[in-house]
């Protein structure tokens, strides 16, 4: 068999194989991959500005915290389980 013919047959075989992996219609677009799971940083649970301060480089200047930077103090809740 001539090389050009052989290549054509191989391409046809691969195409039919790929089609067999679909749902048979041959016209649907593949399902999109699931979005990557992004874990919420645990420091976010204490307030946005707490998290910012927590993530600051140890060489950076400290922030001056203001009321509201941390979730309110609570006598009645249990602590967050920090991993």
């Amino acid at each position, binding site marked *: 068999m001539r090389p050009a013919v052989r290549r054509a047959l191989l391409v046809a075989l691969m195409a039919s194989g790929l089609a067999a992996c679909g749902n048979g219609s041959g016209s649907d677009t593949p399902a999109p991959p699931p979005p990557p799971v992004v874990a919420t940083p645990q420091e976010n649970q204490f307030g946005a500005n707490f998290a910012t301060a927590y993530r600051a480089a140890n060489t950076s200047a400290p922030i001056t915290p203001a009321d509201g930077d941390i979730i309110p103090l609570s006598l009645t809740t249990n*602590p967050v389980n920090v991993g």
Partner: protein
Amino acid sequence: MVKIRTGITAIMALALASTAMPAFASSHREAPGITKMPKVDNTDVYAFQSYEPGRTGFTTLIANFQPGQNPGDGPNYYTMDPDALYEIHIDNLGDAMEHLTFQFQFTNTLKGDKGKTINVGGKDLPIALRQIGPITAPQDGNLGEDEAYTLTLVTGDRRTGTRAAITNASGGGTTFLKPFDNAGNKTIVDYPTYANQFIYNISIPGCAQQGKVFVGQRAEYFAVNLGPIFDLVNFVPIEGDNDPVYGNGSPFPGGITQSENNQELINKKNVTSIALEIPTACLTGTGNGVIGVWSTASLPQARLLRPNPTYKSTALEGGAYVQVSRLGNPLVNELVIGLPDKDLFNAVKPTSDGALLAYVTNPTFPAILDALFRAPVNATLGTNFATLAPTNFPRNDLVATFLTGFAGVNQLKTVTPSEEMRLNTAIAPTPQAAQSTFGVVGNDLAGYPNGRRPGDDTVDITLRVAMGRLCYPIPVAGKLTDLGLCKPADAPTGMVAYTDGAPSSATNILNAFPYLNPPLRGSPRPQNVTNNSFQVIQ
């Protein structure tokens, strides 16, 4: 019973070269994490039927904090942490849950937001000290800062239960004051009289009778020969003479003898006490009259330190409170819990103690003593002890001491293994002069481990119990009684008079609430007396 009878001092010393020892103070700086937070470091808990004459039917609860206070530690001395939650918990059912919690929160306030000021060259400036003249009364004008606290009773879960303010029985106020520490007799001429003004009668929600509260500096009364113990037990820990209290009739040649020189804390250090006296009927609930007691301290979980701190706030804090210190029985977190788990022990509730059970059933401390002393004992005595430590595993005698209480003595209605100080409130208190410093094993059921009084020598009791004293009959109401927890054959040295040589006696402290002596003075030297005419000093 096996007794060790001949001298081994020098040989024992040789045996101490290579074995590490755990910490050995009731709960003073006992875990790595808590050493970073001394203001919330819980050092001792006491729970006993009030033995002050005329106070039958009351239970005294004391939780001490802030270890190792030198009397002269000015100018700031030892205020409590206003960010913290200090709590004393009561389990009156036996499910290892708190059913009553006494919750303390502190505040410090500068008078006029400046404290004391003086005019210097036309400028009115705050002084660097807390006081500017003699102090005699609460909120004294010469004191620039007032330390106050609120007291809340929580019924049920300490966080989600029902909260109610405990109030001053005189006037109904909800704020109480804490005395200034004992700076010395130029600042406070008569410290006991000054401090007694801070003992408040309190009205407790749901309780027909009034109680009492006091928070303030006191003299340490935890008897312990700490330094030499840390130094690989650098003494022979067996009574060396016929001391009528600490001896057993067989003085051990070369053994340590009782001496005030062996004290690390008594007459040397102060501590801060939170003390309550509560009508017993208001503590026992629907249980069997036994209560489990422990204290804790907690801090806000989130903290941002301020780069521009003020007197009122050095950090922004929020979130829930995280427990960082816990104490029921003395020496448990010191001697029983392994180093990797000490801060975990501080952080959890008694309901979680089952996870640490192996530390009690298979304790390491007796094994360490065995490793330190068995070879020299055998070499000196010509004996062939296979071990000096008890061999009954699991150590049910220690489980009863620390985790369940003793049947018929101090077990709660439901028995849940958990680390609580268990007190049978139905056992009448022993008058001060008649108390045995050895508590239950000294024929005094009103003492440790049935609760704990300040005069109980818990170091020596724990030493002896750890080495198997309860495997032998103990005197109960004068009659030798076999507890059935283990046998004499399990404990070859169970009747040896183990001791650290640091004595204690109830007669050396007050016979009235808050029982612990007024604090040692900052000045003049010597500091190990107090500026008053009432305190008993050894």
